[in-house]
């Protein structure tokens, strides 16, 4: 029976991650990075790789720690709490999951490099303002033994810094996933000026050459590789989002216990107590959905869609509430850039859109539940 309770190992992993991140990547480290205009901390990522995080989903044969999806979610959740900036989701979760579906020599080589922290990936999937892999228009026309890629991708998270790209494009009878270096001729990357101060890019492909070897998996059947990768990413993003909701919530409850107005602590006002209590209830319910998604990805990955969408939808809604209430209960100071709450609000909004918003996942759930 799948237990919805953290194992001893997972609890230890979470404690260890929190300990490390509180020292190496607190929110003030993110603030410093933003103030310097940077979106990647190479030293931090290398340290994470040394702890086995970059290889969390990679087999020991390729130098990974192979801890599984629930463990990846534990790490992602802790990262969310302090708004850590890293290519963990793009590279260690999504690209690694995609590459594992293939398992040829080239994929194994890439996995080894991911595990050691020497290779980063970004997923170039979306073209419109909403996540929708099936709406892909980008063209990969057959050309001799290879393909020529033409089109535009948007909201490619980690796309400005990644070493390689997983690119979804239309081929003869379907969609194909290409694994190509990000600096290949014909690729233009424009870093987006994101509200959450992280890396995302618009990428243009102008007659970019790709060979048959660049295809990840089979031609015309991208989804057999991409679907598990996206679901793993959605679950980990849900965990990260739940973590950021917890981070914002913790700040807010802390503030209720120290801020005085009308001669008394504002946390003694029932109007605020009940709102804070409601928010806590929402975070508890979301935590169950997140844990369940990780468990299913580990035990029954072929049937995890409902669980993953549930986690992403719930986490999105809970984080939204947490940051809205966070700013409101802080009052004016919550609106200032000097205070961290705004960071949580912006990160939550970006996370809400990435890999499918609330409606996208609610529709999936509705379809699976027969309406």
């Amino acid at each position, binding site marked *: *029976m799948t*237990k*919805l*309770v953290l194992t001893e190992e997972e609890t230890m992993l979470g404690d260890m991650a929190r300990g490390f991140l509180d020292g190496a990547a607190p929110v003030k480290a993110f603030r410093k990075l933003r103030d310097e205009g940077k979106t990647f901390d190479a030293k931090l990522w290398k340290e994470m790789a040394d702890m086995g995080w970059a290889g969390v989903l990679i087999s020991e044969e390729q130098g990974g720690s192979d801890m599984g999806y629930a463990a990846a979610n534990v790490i992602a959740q802790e990262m969310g709490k302090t708004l850590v900036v890293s290519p963990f989701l793009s590279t260690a979760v999504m690209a690694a999951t995609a590459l594992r579906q293939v398992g040829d020599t080239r994929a194994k080589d890439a996995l080894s490099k991911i595990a050691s922290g020497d290779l980063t990936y970004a997923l170039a999937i979306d073209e419109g303002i909403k996540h929708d892999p099936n709406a892909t228009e980008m063209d990969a026309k057959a050309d001799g033994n290879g393909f020529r890629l033409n089109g535009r991708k948007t909201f490619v998270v980690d796309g400005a810094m990644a070493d390689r790209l997983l690119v979804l494009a239309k081929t003869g009878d379907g969609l194909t996933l290409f694994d190509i270096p990000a600096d290949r001729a014909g690729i233009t990357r424009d870093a987006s000026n994101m509200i959450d101060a992280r890396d995302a890019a618009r990428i243009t492909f102008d007659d970019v050459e790709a060979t048959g070897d660049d295809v990840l998996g089979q031609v015309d059947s991208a989804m057999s590789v991409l679907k598990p990768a996206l679901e793993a990413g959605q679950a980990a993003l849900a965990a990260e989002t739940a973590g950021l909701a917890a981070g914002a919530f913790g700040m807010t*409850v802390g503030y*209720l*216990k120290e801020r005085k107005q009308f001669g008394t*602590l504002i*946390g*003694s006002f*029932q109007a605020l*107590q*009940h709102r*804070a*209590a*409601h928010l*806590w*209830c929402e975070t*508890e*319910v*979301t*935590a*169950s*959905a997140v*844990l*369940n998604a990780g468990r299913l990805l580990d035990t029954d990955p072929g049937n995890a869609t*409902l669980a993953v969408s*549930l986690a992403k*939808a*719930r986490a999105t*809604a809970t984080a939204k509430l947490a940051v809205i209430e966070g700013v409101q209960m802080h009052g004016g100071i919550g609106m200032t850039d000097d205070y961290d709450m705004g960071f949580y609000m912006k990160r939550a909004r970006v996370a809400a859109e990435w890999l499918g918003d609330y409606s996208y996942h*609610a*529709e999936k*759930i*509705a379809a699976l*539940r*027969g*309406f």
Partner: protein
Amino acid sequence: MDTGQTAEEFRAELRAWLEENCPQEMRDSGAGEEDICWGGKNWEFTSEAQKQWLERCAAKGYTVPTWPRDYGGAGLTREQEKIFHEEMDRINARSPLQSFGIWMLGPALLHFGSHEQKLHYLPPIARGEIRWCQGYSEPGAGSDLANVQTKGEDKGDHWLVNGQKIWTSYADQADWIFALVRTDREAPKHKGISFLLIDMEQDGVETRPIRMISGISPFCETFFDDAKVPKEQIVGEENRGWDVAKYLLTHEREMISGGGQGLSGGGRALGAVLAETMGDDGLTDATLRADAMRCEVDALAIGLTLERYKDQSEAGQGAGDASAMLKYMGTELNKQRHELLMAAGGSDALEWDGPQGNRAGNWLRTKANSIEGGTSEVMLSIVSRRVLGLPG
């Protein structure tokens, strides 16, 4: 069950037993409230199959599967219990027996009762022979439950009980009542209450149904006028009844929060039910559909949370004040669910026993969910104080 049995062996044995013993008429768990078997001295079975099903389950301990065998249960582990419910759901089997004895008094007795009390009171509950009701609230003690005024005078070998209880669910059909009675009027509010078991078949105990907005009368008022309660009919220590009451409230909250459970796990999706209601076109109303999707998302996640807390408590990790959270979230969701059912039913749902059955009555009934067993606001105050540690 042999404790050495594997899960698969248990499932196979149970499946075979159910196949042989569950009457076909009892394989329609979607049946309405009027089909529930409550048991008790005055119970009239609605069919021979209902009687058979109760007796067969009771003989195996399946009316209270997790209770110890000595007290009428089957002694199932949590994993076996889960399998039990899965297998029951698989064939759509009705619950053989429901009662406040099972949900509320039983757990309290298992925790606080003496061995003799357990042997005396629990098996008749498990067999559906005695029906219990709850005597907690009073006209002046609603959310402020500890403000109990019903008093018990010490008369040596018994207490002489006088006072009034309200919202005594199904008291008019119950045989016994478990009640909070003030046995020390000098002590502070929470310290002078005892938890007494009172036989309702005596002079001095009278019950009157209260007609509710839903048109039915599941709740009653119960009056005590010099009712005699022998001293051995106390659970826990004298004047320490509040401890028992609190423990029992936890179970009550879990039970009420289960209102959301029907939507989760094996239950049917709300959207599918709504679509069916609305006829051939299905769920075409975009607003209603969006509301139904949100409701479905929340229902599934609350269902998982019930699972998670059970797993946590089995793993020895305290779930803290989870019951207040689950009660609040579950009941608010259930109210919302019935709002959507009414909206989908349109004018058909506006008639008493109209084309939609008792949809309106059920809708109105759910409004009490966030009041009974502690209001939503009381639940939030509990979370605020005990979980978040916000200043009182």
